[in-house]
């Protein structure tokens, strides 16, 4: 894929090492939506950009990090089919006008992306104080589905409810969307919070996430991508892999690795360490996904 992809830093899944394969992907015939072009495709996930955060001890380039990531995405030699932002676009503020200003600031920066198919979902910083009202003004629905080249994408909102819940209404919607699909359909789920109890004492959980996982369990080919924890983390619930992404403002420590959750301070010796975005190669014919982590570069 050229120089951009040559910088790949492949993740490990379940300690096996090497490329992340999200295995068990079934035939194309049952995919909903677009019917069966058998092309592989590539998409990019960016997360936790936290526009409005401004502590220079944590990130002295708080105003420039997302711009660098946008430039790096634009420099990829093969452009992704689409780009997904998995929440916390803005850093929280109690001031509703300031919240809109931050969301606008975020939107202005990402308008420079060359790829114009860009999708968004909220994090709790964007949406939990007003039940997603400001987010929806800028970016539309907080939960939705779309299909691309035979893969079914489901965006679940587990942040607009300030309790960190999906809620019964959305769970019913999810059940209805899943009922449209065959059990071997390929399904990619995006959430902000982890659906499973990664670290409940750090609020790294979804109160009713187990109900969503229960709905997904009958489906053979499901993978979940999420944000919230500002670090790469891979975990299985049954046959379903869950992949957390780096953030683009500040890293957070490993789950429960210290008494209190707090941003990892900036390291002048290693600027932008553990900040980045990821590319996902959806190898449709080979039935796997390849995840690539891109560290932000100094510029």
């Amino acid at each position, binding site marked *: 894929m050229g120089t951009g992809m040559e910088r790949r830093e492949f993740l490990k899944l379940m300690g096996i090492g090497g490329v992340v394969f999200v295995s068990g992907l079934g035939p194309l015939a049952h995919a909903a939506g677009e019917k069966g072009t058998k092309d592989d495709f590539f998409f990019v996930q960016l997360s936790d950009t936290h526009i409005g955060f401004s502590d220079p001890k944590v990130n002295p380039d708080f105003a420039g990090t997302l711009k660098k990531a946008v430039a790096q995405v634009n420099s990829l030699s093969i452009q992704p089919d689409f780009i997904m932002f998995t929440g916390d676009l803005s850093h929280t503020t109690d001031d509703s006008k300031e919240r809109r200003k931050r969301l606008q600031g975020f939107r202005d920066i990402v308008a420079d992306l060359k790829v114009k198919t860009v999708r968004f979902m909220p994090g709790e910083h964007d949406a939990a104080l007003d039940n997603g009202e400001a987010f929806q003004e800028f970016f539309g629905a907080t939960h939705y589905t779309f299909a691309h080249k035979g893969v079914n994408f489901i965006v679940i909102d587990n942040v607009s409810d300030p*309790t960190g819940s999906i809620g019964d209404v959305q769970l019913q919607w999810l059940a209805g969307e899943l009922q449209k699909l065959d059990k071997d359909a390929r399904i990619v789920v995006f959430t902000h919070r982890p659906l499973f109890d990664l670290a*409940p004492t750090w609020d790294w959980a979804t109160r009713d996430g187990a109900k969503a996982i229960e709905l997904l369990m009958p489906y053979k080919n499901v993978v979940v991508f999420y944000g919230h924890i500002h670090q790469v983390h891979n975990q299985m619930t049954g046959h379903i892999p869950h992949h957390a992404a780096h953030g683009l403002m500040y890293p957070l420590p490993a789950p429960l690795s210290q008494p209190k959750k707090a941003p990892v301070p900036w390291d002048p010796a290693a600027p932008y360490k553990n900040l980045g975005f990821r590319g996902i190669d959806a190898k449709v014919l080979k039935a796997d996904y390849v995840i690539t982590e891109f560290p932000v570069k100094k510029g």
Partner: protein
Amino acid sequence: MAERAYRLAVVFLVAAIVVAGFAAFGACADEPEQVIKVTAKKFEYSPNEITVKKGVPVTLEFTSLDRPHGFNCPDLAIRTDIMPGKVNRVHFVPQKTGTFEFHCDLFCGEGHENMTGKIIVTE
């Protein structure tokens, strides 16, 4: 003869259970339920360090001074919403000693992630 010995053994066993039960009940009965009032506001609990005794029933009485908050102590499996205008109660009997973190699990604003505390369970 064997049957008599068996009956005696059963009687002793039942007696032992009853005595142990009374002893345990007596120990708890000596200790009145702890009722602890806790206020919640952006972005702190007061007190944020709560000491209780193992085996002694506890009621935490939460009131919010401003907006909805949450209380969640996953390691003790207790939680409640803390809604303004009412007293929100949590009952539990600590079964293990140690220090257990709790946090607000209802997103409440800029300092939400620092709204934490701990429950210390002593012997």
